[in-house]
């Protein structure tokens, strides 16, 4: 069963006060997220990621289209008990303490009173806020608020978690923790749908990603599939101070530092370069396949979208 099926959701805002003109925040979107996967929703700022999430949360109403979440109509109120949501740059009732806030959200989500206390403590521990649970949220830093946000999203043990830019505002330690948490959720069999504009996060975590730009979907697929569509390259490093002429002719540039030489060649030239090095009696240090990064794919997609403006990929 698919966790999320987006069936042509579309949002057009009317902007301008006097002569209203339509602004497409999201063109009809078709997207399926499978059960149990971590799905990355990629795109630069203003691409339509947050709009999509708000549509799915029922905060904004679509101009057309519909969606199914966990097999049910997405407007079905019973769906909401089984999903968690972290908004972008979350902000909470700052007169409450972290503990009170989670308690309140637990009440709203219908967590039974008996389990609530225990569950709140558990989540506070999980997001690393146990020591500051009695502090009013107005005294929290941005990173701490992000943790509270993640805490409230997973509080009621939802089957499906939506995270809007979960890593933003966090230090490297925090990002690491959020990454671990997402993997743990996956491990528990939950589905994670998260949006980000930071590609390395998606690359490290996601089973599949979708790329969105200017309200339009540009590509969906497994990270490996997307990256392997571009020919790979190989990085070859050996000990020495000189570059044999035969190799020099083959590569555009080579870096010499200390007693190491480093060149990057096309995958199909790899054997030839190694043969030459053997013949020249150089000592090979490393041969590393350089997989095209998701970023390269992303940049490529956007570049192509710009040149063939309007055509979908």
């Amino acid at each position, binding site marked *: 069963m698919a966790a999320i099926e987006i069936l042509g959701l579309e949002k057009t805002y009317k902007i301008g006060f006097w002569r209203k003109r339509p602004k497409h925040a999201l063109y009809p979107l078709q997207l399926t997220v499978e059960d149990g996967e971590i799905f990355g929703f990629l795109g630069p700022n203003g691409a339509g990621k947050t709009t999509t999430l708000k549509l799915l949360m029922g905060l904004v109403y679509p101009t057309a289209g519909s969606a199914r979440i966990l097999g049910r109509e997405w*407007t*079905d*109120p019973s769906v909401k008990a089984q999903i968690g949501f972290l908004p972008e740059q979350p902000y909470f009732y700052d007169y409450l303490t972290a503990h009170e806030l989670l308690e309140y959200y637990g009440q709203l989500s219908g967590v039974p009173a008996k389990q609530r206390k225990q569950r709140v403590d558990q989540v506070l521990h999980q997001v690393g806020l146990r020591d500051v649970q009695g502090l009013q949220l107005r005294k929290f830093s941005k990173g701490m608020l992000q943790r509270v946000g993640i805490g409230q999203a997973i509080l009621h043990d939802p089957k499906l978690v939506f995270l809007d830019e979960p890593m933003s505002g966090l230090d490297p330690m925090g990002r690491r923790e959020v990454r671990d948490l997402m993997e743990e959720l996956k491990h528990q069999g939950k589905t994670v749908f998260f949006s980000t504009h930071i590609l390395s996060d998606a690359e490290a975590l996601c089973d599949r990603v979708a790329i969105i730009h200017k309200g339009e979907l540009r590509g969906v697929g497994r990270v490996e599939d997307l990256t392997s569509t571009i020919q790979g390259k190989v990085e070859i490093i050996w000990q020495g101070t000189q570059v044999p002429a035969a190799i020099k002719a083959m590569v555009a540039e080579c870096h010499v530092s200390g007693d190491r030489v480093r060149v990057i060649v096309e995958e199909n030239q790899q054997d030839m370069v190694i043969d030459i090095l053997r013949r020249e009696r150089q000592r090979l240090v490393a041969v590393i396949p350089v997989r095209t990064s998701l970023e390269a794919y992303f940049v490529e997609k956007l570049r192509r979208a710009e040149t063939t403006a309007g055509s979908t990929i």
Partner: protein
Amino acid sequence: MKHRKKISLIAGACMVLSLVASSIVLHRTDQLRPQATLDEVLFLNSPKVIKRASLGFDGLVACIYWTRAVQYFGSRFRYAEPNYSLLAPLLEITTQLDPHLVVAYDFGSTFLASKQYGAGEPERAIELVNYGIQNNPDNWRLYYDLGFVYYMELKDYKSAAEAFERGSRVPNAHPFVKILAAQMAQHAGEYQTARMLWSATFQTTHDKQIKQSAFEHLRALRVDEDVTHLQDGVTHFGERTGRLPASMAELLAAMGLDRVPVDPDGNPYKLTPEGRVEVRVPDDFAFATKGLPPGYKPPPKAHAQF
């Protein structure tokens, strides 16, 4: 989608029903508390307190009290035996909140004073209008209102003439006010004043009709004066001899006059057997207050000119 539509429908229906229900309740409450807003006039009848309580918005509150006054008068007017006891306080509050609300003085002078159509409290009306004049000395209408209260309700022509005369001196006053002043003065027997006012009108007006009227009034004034003088002679004669003079000649002799006095048209005055001094042609002096046959009614044309 469906869910949202259902909620909207329920909320819409609930809103309409609640509005209807609240209107019905409100209607019934109004019947329960007739004149409820006027009750507070009984409790809060000090304009000073109300002025303080209006927190500086005296103008607005004055308008509200003014509406209440009109409303009160209107609702009482329909009763068989109307009781206007709150009219004076309502108007006093209104005008003290906004002393420049001239319409309130206008209205008050008429309906507060009138015995027939209003509260029949001319003294309070005069008080009200005098307060208005104090605050709006440049508004001729207030003097006019004041004059009318004296004239219509108190028949005090002298005070009326004085009020009209003061009004006529206000810049931009309607010329009519001066005419009224003159007329009142004539009624009051203040011929000097009346002559002066009519002469001024005659000389300053550019309106042909008014000029003509002023001229007619001046003529009538002379008749008034002459007749008064001669009539005094008749009275004097009676006191001395115990009878009426038999003829004009006998009267003139008794008064020490050598000539028969004539009216402005040159016709001599006549003495009736009842001892009344009269003009020969009453229609020529329709504005005269004296010297006309008893029960004389001026022809309609003359009456139309004041």
